[in-house]
């Protein structure tokens, strides 16, 4: 009796739009190109496991979405009040409910979710599995990450580095996550999910990279001023390259050659000025008590380590130039950029970036050194900056 064509047409159009948009989205948003942090392009087996859960979940959510929204459009257009309708005539049937129907749509979603829950449980249990993991300790602090490798399992770290961690492809890695001040969160989206770094606790994230690559990461728990710029990288190397990296990192860099005068002066300056916080193994004094940089020391942070390898709570710069990024990945150390993982970085150092940092660190990254949070601006002269840069370049 009523003309419902219009309703079907509108509903159909809406459905078509939704489907087309959905298709475009699904095919587009997952692409990692130009989106270093995307969560939809797993490169490791843990992130793949998550992906395997996400896809059916999204699919079902998408189906429910379409059913509800298209249903809504249909109901609303189909039962709209038409211009020729008057109150009191042909009024709607007064339906108060239908218990069976309602029970139905109580139970059906519950069942659906129960099925999904099985996969969910399965994946959760999977996340902590690891075989013969390489263990790396990660320490979050305002606003950078430190990594420690204890190669011989003697409890004392053998490699201390910042910002960029190296792992071998194909091996499980257990990141043991700690924090030195406030809560941070360690996240390499291509490899695994997040894990918070909570002061006083040790958490773990297990991951495995399936291919060589420089994977971007980002601190994701709000941690104060520069939270947004607290980035990090994990570079996955072939096992052979990884060995090369290990060897390089465990041998001390050569002292600057005497004829490289700038660098020698830079070293002196560094020991005088910078060793208050930074450590270069074998060069800076090791016996200083930790700079009261943060007040939330991890149980073993600061006690054992400070004496042997770290002066204060600032990145250990011993092998600075072994890295492709610094300042939490905000700046590149080499002009060729840092997107390709190399065991020993090659290329021309980007001295401009280093100088920019030394000139005014707070210009690169907002920090609060007055409250012991971050690196102060020492108002170095250009000459001093040249010297320091020359010295830093020797740290490879």
């Amino acid at each position, binding site marked *: 009796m009523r003309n419902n064509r219009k309703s079907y047409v509108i509903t159909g159009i809406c459905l078509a739009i939704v489907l087309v948009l959905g298709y475009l989205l699904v095919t587009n948003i997952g692409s990692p190109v*130009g989106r270093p942090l995307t969560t939809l392009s797993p490169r490791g087996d843990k992130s793949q496991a998550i992906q395997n859960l996400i896809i059916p979940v999204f699919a079902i959510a998408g189906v429910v979405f379409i059913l509800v929204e298209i249903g809504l459009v249909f109901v609303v257009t189909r039962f709209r009040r038409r211009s020729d309708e008057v109150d009191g005539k042909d009024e709607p*049937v007064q339906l*108060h409910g239908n218990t069976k129907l309602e029970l139905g749509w109580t139970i059906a979603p519950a069942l659906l979710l129960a099925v999904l829950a099985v996969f969910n449980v399965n994946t959760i249990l999977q996340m902590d599995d690891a075989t013969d993991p390489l263990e790396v300790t990660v320490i979050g602090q305002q606003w950078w990450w430190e990594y420690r490798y204890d190669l011989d399992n003697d409890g004392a770290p053998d490699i201390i580095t910042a910002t960029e961690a190296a792992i071998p492809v194909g091996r499980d890695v257990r990141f043991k996550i700690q924090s030195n001040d406030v809560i941070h969160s360690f996240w390499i989206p291509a490899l695994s999910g997040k894990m918070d770094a909570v002061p006083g606790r040790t958490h773990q994230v297990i991951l495995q990279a399936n291919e060589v690559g420089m994977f971007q990461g980002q601190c994701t728990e709000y941690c104060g001023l520069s939270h947004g710029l607290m980035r990090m990288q994990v570079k996955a190397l072939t096992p052979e390259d990884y060995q090369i990296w290990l060897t390089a990192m465990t041998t001390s860099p050569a002292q600057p050659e005497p004829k490289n005068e700038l660098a020698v002066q830079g070293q002196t300056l560094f020991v005088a000025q910078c060793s208050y916080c930074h450590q270069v193994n074998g060069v800076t004094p090791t016996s200083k008590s930790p700079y009261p940089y943060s007040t939330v020391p991890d149980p073993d942070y600061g006690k054992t380590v400070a004496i042997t390898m770290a002066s204060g709570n600032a990145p250990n710069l011993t092998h600075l130039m072994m890295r492709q990024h610094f300042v939490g990945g905000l700046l590149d150390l080499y002009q060729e950029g840092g997107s390709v993982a190399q065991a020993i970085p090659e290329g021309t150092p980007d001295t401009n970036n280093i100088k920019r940092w030394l000139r005014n660190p707070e210009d690169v990254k907002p920090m609060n050194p007055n409250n012991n949070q971050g690196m102060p601006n020492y108002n170095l002269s250009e000459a001093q900056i040249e010297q320091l840069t020359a010295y830093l370049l020797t740290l490879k």
Partner: protein
Amino acid sequence: MAIIEDQRPLELTTGHDPVAPEAPSPLGVFARPKANTGWRSWVNTVDHKKIGIMYGVASFFFLLVGGFEALLIRLQLSVPGNQLLSADLYNQVFTMHGVTMVFMVIMPMASAFANYLIPLQIGARDVSFPRMNALSLWIWLAGAIFFNSSWLLGGGADGGWFNYAPNAGVTFSPGTGIDFYAIGLLIMGIGSTVSAVNLTVTVLNMRAPGMTLMKMPVFTWMNFVVQVLLVFALPVITVALLLLTLDRMFGAAFFDASKGGDPFLWEHLFWIFGHPEVYIMVLPAFGMVSEIIPVFSRKPIFGYPFMVGSGIAIGFMGWGVWAHHMFASGMGQLSVLAFSLSTLFIAVPTGVKILNWMATMYGGRIKFSVPMLFSIGLVGMFTIGGLSGVTHAFAPADTQQTDTYYIVAHFHYVLFGGALLGMMGGLYFWWPKMFGHFLGERTGKWHFWLMLVGFNLTFGPMHILGLQGMMRRTYTYTSVQGFSMWNMVSTIGAFIIALSLLTFMGNVVFSYRKHRKNPVNPGADPWDARSLEWMIPSPTPEYNFAEIPVVEEFDEFWHRKYGHDENGRLVRIAKTEDVVESSDPVTVHLPSPSYWPLVLALGMPLVGYGLIFNLWWAVPGVILIVAGIYGWVMEPSTDPDAGHGHDDHHGEPDEPEATELAAPETVEAELVSASAGSTGVTAEEGDSK
């Protein structure tokens, strides 16, 4: 009950009463307030309707404030590397935005409706404790102003709205912003607790004859659930905030890991409160939609018991899912597992609601009035938010999504697309009842469509951004991260929302002007609606019901107008004009206005400033609070001198202080005479508690 029946005619409502000229009181400013008009009548009112309107106005103001902050956020993020806001300022802005929107917009706006409508919907003349009602308004407002005054006094809070420790401790946040957060929320929490107790008791105790619980309108039901949730959720955050205050101001170390404190304690306490809180925000809107959809579909709500039951179920289940905000916190696999599962199933009762609304519309005759548009919008938009909620109920998936814009998208879809859209619909729906004129229908449609489009443009792209890895609470991003395009879209969307809100404000102004020029009363029942509030004239008279209705059915008012024929089709049985109340009240006696709630509330922020800056400032605050409490307790809730002369208390023996102990007979006499004068008057003196 608050209002007794008295044999004298009502003298209160007209405002200017020629019979009783204001007799100058020797007490001057300390005298009991009498004003019925002008700003004073708002300051001293205990009328739930005026209080509701003040809640509404204040929360709308804060919507503009919070929205302004949101616009700043969006401007800053519109292009990569933007320098508009510094990192520090940005952190303050998003924190204040979140807190403002949650505690100063959505919650009080829900309170506005709850205050205004609950007594009307259950057929009462006021809430159970009218003065306490005023108190909760003033305390909340004092707290809100106190909290926002931090902008002028050293900077806003910058710890995020959930303010995780230890970043919120003095070591890492030495400024005063977080003190304002802690104390501001404590103050507002006191206000909300008072109001929650009040409204809980109101719903239980003040219902009209025959109005059993299962005959209450869904809106009242949902608000009842919300009040109960508040009663239980607020103390939890109170504990958390107390501990935080002790940490920050008194040298304790509850959340300071270096001294043995545990940051997890804060997380748990916050989210034990926080998750019920999100349902506290959305259920009132659900209630409104459940009123609007049946009216404009001309069908009863589908599955009333299921609607009520699912609301209760949501309320209960909400207590068992809080740790889904902590899937990435490292609390341990077993906990993650348990909370992941419990969270999944909270989709079930919510789904029941969505589907029941659709079933209500199904087979109806839908009139696309503005309130209905907003309601349909809610059904559509909330579903999106709910479904994204379900996707992060899967814990492993959530470890990829948490703290990204995907979450931001989720909660704006549920908060804006759920709570705010619903309340916008509510405003259009109840506006004629509150103010006696319609909001412009055509402008309203503009408002709706602009809002819907702007909203989706703003928050839709955030799903994509989040999945592409953009983390929340970042004050900037770099162009290589590939977030630029969608952020721009989102910013444009935000300004479309702003435009829609301007449209709304224009609508308010112009429809009022039009009404002033050419007053047309919409009548008691402009929408042909269903619940009791539509039985009484618009705008609602001060006494609400001239005669308390006796309720026989759910949707009582509707059933007085309509029945159905043998096919179950709707037929009219009575003319609306014959069913609605005519306004000639005979026997109404209203609670008298009072200043004390305001006095008491004013003391609170003073104590707050005292704690933050200098304890001496707290002294006047404490004095105000104590004077407020005792002034209140000693003041009869109904002014014996009001309007009808000295009746009640004159029988009372005016005992000179502490004279001899009364002999038993005297005692009896005392009690009798006291109650004689006070059967009604003492009635809401529990108020004095």
